[in-house]
């Protein structure tokens, strides 16, 4: 059986360790500044997603700047193409993989899936695995796209890579109207060491950088347009109304917090019982915990049914028991602000 709804223990003592400040006794300006500070913190805390994404953008910007200042030096040899491409795409790859690592929906999807594939999805919906994986991949693609666009806006990476090209078509495009040295010595143009006039050298360099920046802007525009279209499509296909969706998100957040608090509480009680019994050499008394099957049922990925309004897997498990009904009418969570990020 599951954990019954026992009396909740009082909130953890550690959380309320600090004594209350008696504001009346302090200077009014101190009280005012504390209020203002708390207000600012609250504001920032409410804008978590925006701040999260801007922080990621700042981090990407900072590391790109660092790389191009400290580490990136175009070798001005025949290896330009490989060098430039590696510097453009390897950080993007690393950011993509890191995105997978930090996405808890990914681990929810994979935990135990080889041991019992039916554990994650009920019969007949195996293609949902691919769908959810695609969703995760799309949300992990944000950071690499940011890196690519910032790196292209910078211009040095693309310039180095393109100047190492051997394809005659590309060379024809870049060196149109330039003397023959451009065709032979294009790989030296980043360092300014070709035998062309400095003006020509500068012109080729600037045109490569311009191409890079145009490409960078194009990527930014198309990525933002694409994300707008997919969000609109997902919302369009949503069988859940707008207000209910907002409620759903709030509920998911609150459930996550409650779950972690309860985990902490129960872990505390169970470990205290065990350690005490070890030291005092006593038999332990029975401690009610969810069964193995209950844990597995609660870890399934959630899908919404219009007939039963369950806002999470836990909600469904608690109300319906361990055997799940047929899944006839489904909808999926929208891409932005998913409820599965436990």
């Amino acid at each position: 059986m599951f954990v019954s709804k026992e009396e909740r223990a009082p909130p953890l003592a550690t959380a309320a360790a600090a004594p209350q400040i008696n504001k009346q006794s302090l200077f009014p300006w101190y009280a005012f500044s504390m209020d203002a500070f708390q207000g600012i913190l609250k504001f920032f805390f409410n804008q978590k997603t925006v701040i999260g994404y801007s922080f990621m953008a700042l981090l990407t910007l900072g590391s790109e700047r660092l790389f191009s200042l400290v580490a990136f030096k175009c070798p001005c040899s025949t290896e330009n193409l490989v060098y430039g491409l590696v510097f453009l795409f390897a950080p993007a790859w690393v950011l993509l993989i890191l995105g997978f690592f930090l996405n808890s929906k990914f681990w929810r999807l994979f935990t135990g899936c080889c041991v019992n594939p039916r554990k994650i999805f009920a019969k007949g919906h195996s293609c949902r695995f691919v769908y959810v994986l695609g969703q995760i991949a799309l949300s992990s693609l944000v950071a690499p796209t940011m890196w690519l666009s910032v790196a292209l806006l910078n211009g040095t990476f693309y310039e180095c890579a393109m100047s190492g090209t051997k394809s005659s078509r590309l060379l024809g495009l870049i060196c149109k109207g330039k003397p023959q040295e451009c065709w032979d010595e294009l790989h030296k143009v980043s360092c300014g060491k070709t035998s062309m006039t400095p003006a020509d050298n500068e012109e080729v360099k600037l045109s490569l950088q311009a191409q890079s920046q145009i490409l960078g802007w194009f990527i930014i525009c198309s990525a933002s347009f694409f994300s707008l279209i997919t969000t609109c499509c997902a919302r369009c296909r949503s069988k859940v109304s707008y207000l209910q969706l907002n409620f759903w998100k709030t509920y998911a957040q609150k459930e996550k917090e409650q779950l972690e608090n309860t985990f902490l509480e129960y872990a505390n009680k169970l470990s205290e019982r065990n350690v005490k019994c070890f030291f005092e050499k006593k038999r332990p008394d029975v401690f009610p915990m969810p069964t193995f099957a209950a844990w597995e049922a609660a870890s399934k990925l959630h899908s919404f049914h219009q007939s039963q309004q369950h806002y999470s897997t836990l909600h469904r498990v608690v109300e319906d028991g361990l055997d799940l009904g047929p899944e006839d009418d489904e909808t999926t969570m929208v891409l932005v602000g998913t409820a599965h990020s436990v």
Partner: protein
Amino acid sequence: MDKFRAVLDLHLKHHSTLGYGLVTLLTAGGERVFSTAVFQCPCSATWNLPYGLVFLLVPALALFLLGYVLNARTWRLLTGCCARGARSGGCGAARRAVLVFAQLSATAAVAPLTWVSVALLGGAFYECAASGSGPLARRLCRGRDPSCEARLPLAPCSPAQAADVQDLLKELKAQSQVLGWILIAVVIIFLLIFTSVSRCLSPVSFLQLKFWKIYLEQEQQILKSQATEHATELAKENIKCFFECTHPKQYNTPSVKDWQQISSLYTFNPKDQYYSMLHKYVNRKEKSQSIRSNEGDVVIPILGFVDTPGMNTAAEL
């Protein structure tokens, strides 16, 4: 307090990623210090290669060994393994030990690989080593004037030399950086595959794993505080009796066998839901039953965290 809670949640949720991130930052910082302050390329044809290789590989080896030392699981595996004579379990126990050792090696390999990739990205070590390597110098100097091979090892020390040799150095640095990035890309994809596979093979569901990790942290804290309390009382009793020359009263303290039982490596039994060896021991059916190597006990890769709760348990243990 709520804000600190949020930070704590982040710590619990991305515990291992934060740990690896910290290790990466520290290694990168260390590499910076080494290559700017300590490293001086000898610029001789015979010494460049060994010097560069030593700087590249020896700190990696040291970090690898440090990874073993700082992992509490190593000490769990090793403590008392010779003293106990013939081990119960025979082949099964040996196989388990090998699996645990392999996992330990994989975890310990993170810091040295980070060092090598950051060092390659920096370029100084590889540049020095490659300029002293005969075959590589011959390949680079192909088609250039004959003195190139002789001048190449001296190039890292004198930047004002001939431009063509400096170009070669730039090429070496570029090769080094490409190698570094490729190493990072390969390592990270292997890490993802390995972690996904071990998660896939986990017999325990996602939420239960989450609860498990929280349980272990709590158990570690409570064990420490209870042990301190118990030790204080026992010490007080003994010292009092020493000074007052009386007999100490009977103190109920866990026996050597009890401690041995809970110190062994964790094995998972699908029939029971025990979250640690302590939990298993406390819930055993008969008083004299041994909880080591029972029917159905297996070592699961994903459950390696059971033996190493918290980040710095080696210092505490």
